């Protein structure tokens, strides 16, 4: 958390045809972190990435790269050489995979053997060494995406910007690419800024999240801050109302996992290696509230909880509970009356192991 900012932007205003498309008072990109920029379509995520990469010139505002202002042609092109950008579409040239990946290295006038080494290494990283000699135009969507990522990583950038890295890929392709990218980012420790629109992608990859809408930043924070403490209705709706708990898998056998969360133990269904860091996602409608512990229940997870907040939402109440970890539950109005719930009261919260959605997370 105390790591230094590799990039800072201040008071950025970018207008297009009289419309302000970006209005960012401040944004820091911390060294070594993976930052997700999320928001609805047209929020300005791509524009922000391109501006940060020095490819779009804002009307006002300052960009600092490693503490130095980027305000001249020379400083901008110097910054550009430290940053790689991966666009939403693969944008490969009509030539071989090898030549595509070598492109950026050629611009840097490296020798043939240096280029070959970096290209081979990068292709290897993304598991596409076998495609080296293929023509880029004959690749499938997933392969092309990998080539475009390999081209960006071959430059060994200090910072990488990725715009919707997983869009328009079918689920299995997306899944394997996400997993590979996670490993590569972990291994290379490259700082990454990713425009994403999917909650699960965000949870799996990002450590910090910035939520955008209509060209403005709505909220910035760590992933769990954004998901658990959205500070506005907009963010809450966008990230969903699930409770998202950070935990570590402490045991796993035959599809039954035990996850420790804040010293408490949650049981869930799935398969994970022991020690794997995960998020446990729980929808509020799957949490049952009762006055006292019942004798027999199929719910594997039963916790004593203190009601910390009650919000009326239409025909039901939203309870924020403290069970040693934060938990959100919905309860109907009759149940609320029957159980005589008040803020500060102690209740029993239970949920089934099958209701816990487990997402593996980074670092």
């Amino acid at each position, binding site marked *: 958390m105390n790591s230094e900012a590799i990039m800072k932007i201040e008071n950025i205003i970018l207008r297009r045809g009289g419309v302000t498309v970006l209005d960012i008072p401040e944004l820091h990109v911390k060294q070594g972190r993976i930052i997700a920029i999320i928001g609805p379509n047209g929020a300005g995520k791509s524009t922000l990435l391109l501006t940060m990469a020095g490819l779009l010139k804002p009307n006002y505002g300052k960009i600092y790269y490693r503490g130095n202002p980027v305000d001249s042609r020379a400083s901008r*092109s110097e910054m550009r050489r430290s940053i790689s*950008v991966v666009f939403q579409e693969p944008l490969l040239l009509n030539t071989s995979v090898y030549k595509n990946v070598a492109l950026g290295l050629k*611009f840097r006038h490296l020798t043939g053997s240096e280029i070959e080494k970096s290209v081979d290494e990068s292709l290897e990283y993304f598991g596409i060494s076998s495609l080296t000699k293929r023509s880029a135009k004959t690749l499938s969507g997933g392969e092309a995406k990998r080539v475009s990522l390999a081209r960006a990583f071959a430059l060994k950038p200090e910072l990488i910007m990725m715009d919707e890295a997983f869009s328009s890929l079918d689920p299995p392709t997306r899944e394997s690419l996400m997993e590979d990218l996670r490993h590569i980012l972990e291994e290379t420790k490259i700082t990454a800024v990713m425009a994403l629109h999917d909650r699960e992608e965000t949870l799996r990859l990002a450590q910090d999240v910035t939520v955008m809408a209509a060209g403005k930043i709505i909220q910035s924070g760590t992933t769990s801050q954004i998901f658990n403490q959205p500070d506005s209705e907009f963010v809450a709706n966008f990230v969903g109302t699930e409770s998202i708990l950070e935990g570590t898998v402490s045991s796993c056998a035959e599809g039954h996992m035990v996850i420790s969360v804040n010293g408490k133990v949650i049981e869930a269904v799935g398969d994970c290696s022991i020690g794997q860091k995960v998020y446990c996602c729980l929808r509020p409608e799957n949490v049952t509230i009762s006055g006292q512990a019942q004798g027999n229940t199929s719910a594997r997870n039963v916790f004593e909880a203190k009601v910390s907040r009650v919000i009326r939402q239409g025909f039901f109440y939203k309870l924020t509970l403290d069970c040693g970890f934060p938990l959100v539950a919905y309860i109907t109005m009759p149940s609320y009356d029957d159980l005589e719930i008040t803020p500060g009261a102690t209740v029993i919260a239970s949920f089934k192991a099958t209701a816990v959605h487990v997402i593996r997370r980074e670092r």
Partner: protein
Amino acid sequence: MDLIVQGVIKAFELIISFDPEVMGITWLSLKISGTATFISLFIGVSIGTVVALTNFYGKRVVISLINTGMGLPPVVVGLFVTMMIWRSGPFGFLEILYTPYAMIIAQAIIATPIVMGISLAAIQNLPPNLRLQILSLGASRLQMVWVLIKEARLPLLAAVMAGFGGVISEIGASIMVGGNIKGYSRVLTTATVMETGKGNFDIAIALGIILLLVAFAINALLTQIQQRQHPR
């Protein structure tokens, strides 16, 4: 009927025997039109690329003008070039009227808008983010432009074909500024017109066949390059 059959037979005899006069005319045609296309390629591709990649006031008007230029009537170009290099014209001191140089200039003027218009469309048709992607990989502006031109090579080859095809088969300007001087500025088209006028159908047919063969050979070669699927 006899006229046509005899004409065709004699035409093939002329071609197969490598008749020196016919060969000389063919070679001159290739040299003049080739050089003119080459010149138009430089001017056309560079201006076409610049117009495609920059935004300026009146860009649409410029594009319309270029597209109009693609259909420039050769006789108008011939008239214009003739006046320019006429003894008392602004470039009269060059004394190049009725020389192959004048023909190259006129043909280059005809081919340039064709090459320019196709290059412009080719560069504009590349994905809009491709420029930014190339810049983000660390390219200088010049490197970026070069990569874009290489990426648009297939339609650019079409531009070369269209330009060359236009000028090798063109007659109006060539006869006006070249004068159809035997052994000096006589090319396939001007010779064909003259021989037909004289009733020498055999030579005219031979020249016509050669003109078709040249156009076909050049286009076949370029098509071969264009359609080559494997990466360079």
